């Protein structure tokens, strides 16, 4: 049993860091929704950010997805063979990649690459007063820097997930062909025959939330960076850590929701 005093102490510690953080982030998110959909719209900057964010992470996500599909297939194969269901390999890998591994791994790589770069970029802009300079130059820095980046991350991650999934499945086809032979066409038929709408859609939906989380946390950390060059490093680092954890929490919530909706 927790005594009241230890309870209070724990609560106090939580209050100092965790709750503060959650409060700050909620406030920041509310500000995003309040300002994000009112003019002026920073369309040019948004398009530029989409390009930067999507393009920057594409090679990394492509490579990791390919390896993931290939390795997953090679690792699953022996057990599948021992059960005599080797022919089901494309179906199993397809479901695993599309429903869970693809979105989560892509989002984590995205958090590492984009979350940290947003955190560091906005952090250094904050520390060197570039954000203040924007504000005195007739620009709302929140709209120009934060809203554009968050929207771009939200939009780009699902696209990257779709691309990553396809590359993973391609890797898996190569994995299958290392031992034995399956034609490219047959492989895809086997993957898609076993995929239902309810496999693809929830996974696609949750990647929007993952993208939003990476964007908003990266911006939050950067925008509230403490003074000094050390502050920039801390912002970048904690942007990755926090968004990675949030991705898993969202993943957990998503599975509950789809379960409740009977989509599983």
């Amino acid at each position: 049993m927790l005594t009241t005093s230890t309870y209070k102490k724990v609560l106090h510690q939580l209050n100092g860091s965790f709750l503060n953080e959650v409060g700050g982030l909620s406030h920041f998110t509310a500000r995003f929704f309040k300002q994000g959909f009112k003019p002026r719209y920073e369309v040019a900057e948004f398009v530029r950010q989409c390009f930067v964010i999507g393009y920057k992470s594409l090679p990394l996500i492509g490579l990791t997805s390919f390896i993931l599909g290939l390795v997953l297939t090679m690792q699953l194969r022996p057990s599948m063979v021992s059960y005599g269901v080797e022919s089901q390999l494309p179906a199993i890998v397809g479901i695993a990649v599309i429903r869970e591994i693809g979105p989560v791994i892509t989002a984590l790589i995205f958090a590492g690459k984009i979350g940290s770069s947003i955190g560091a970029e906005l952090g250094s802009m904050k520390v060197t007063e570039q954000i203040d300079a924007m504000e005195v130059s007739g620009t709302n820095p929140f709209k120009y820097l934060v809203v554009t980046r968050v929207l771009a991350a939200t939009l780009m991650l699902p696209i990257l997930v779709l691309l990553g999934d396809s590359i993973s499945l391609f890797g898996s086809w190569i994995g299958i062909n290392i031992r034995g032979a399956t034609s490219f066409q047959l492989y895809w038929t086997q993957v898609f025959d076993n995929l239902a709408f309810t496999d693809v859609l929830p996974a696609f939906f949750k990647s929007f939330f993952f993208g939003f989380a990476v964007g908003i946390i990266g911006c939050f950390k950067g925008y509230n960076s403490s003074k000094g060059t050390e502050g920039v490093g801390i912002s970048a680092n904690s942007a990755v850590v926090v968004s990675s954890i949030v991705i898993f929490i969202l993943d957990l919530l998503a599975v509950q929701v789809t379960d409740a909706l009977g989509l599983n």
Partner: protein
Amino acid sequence: MEQLIKPEIDDDNKEFSEPVLKIQNLFKSFGDNHVLIDFNLELKKGESVVVLGKSGSGKSVMIKCVVGLLQPDKGSVIMFGKNIPELDDEELDRIRAKVGFLFQGNALYDSMTVRENLEFPMRRTWIQFSQEEVKKRVVDTLEDVGLAHTIDMMPAELSGGMRKRIALARTLILRPEIILYDEPTTGLDPITGKEIIELMNEIQKKYNTSSLIISHDMKCVQTASDRVVVLIDGRCYAMGTYEELTKNKDPKVKEFFE
């Protein structure tokens, strides 16, 4: 949009009339840290006022309250007849287009070239400029600060003195009527510092601006000021011309002039 030609004024006997900036009873605290306590200041058209104060005395806080980057707890900042703390974003942007701010650390956008840095305020302000105007104004302003050749360089490729000049050019690009300088010579060697002060004086003459200069560089105070305000304990502790203040007997003021 070019400024009018400066009216003929005898340099040794300047007469300043209407105030363009009036700070009245300004209070600002951060928690228990009371930074500004009843600060007052007046800046007249065409005048250069230097605010002198120790590090951490709240000079940057004061100047940020002036442009609305910080919200004061109490008091008013009247600029061009409007009270800055009460303005909404749109009105604030209109006033800010007439005010230049030179940041202590330059605050150049380091992901942009020098050209893009200078274009940014022109493209973002509510005043519409044509493509040619923007191009021409950027080149002209870079020539004003003597750095026309750096137009396609990144800020990281420039020296500290050059960066200060580029920041000054960016401050000037909208032809502001008031320029706020936050420690324009700090972190520069004495010779470069002197060049920056000369440049500031040239600009003042050329565009007939009023300047509020924050500094603790006595060379700067001596050569760039019409009037000096000493900021101690969060308020305007002493005021006068450089010559007057050198004769001031108060030990706190004397400290600065030794």
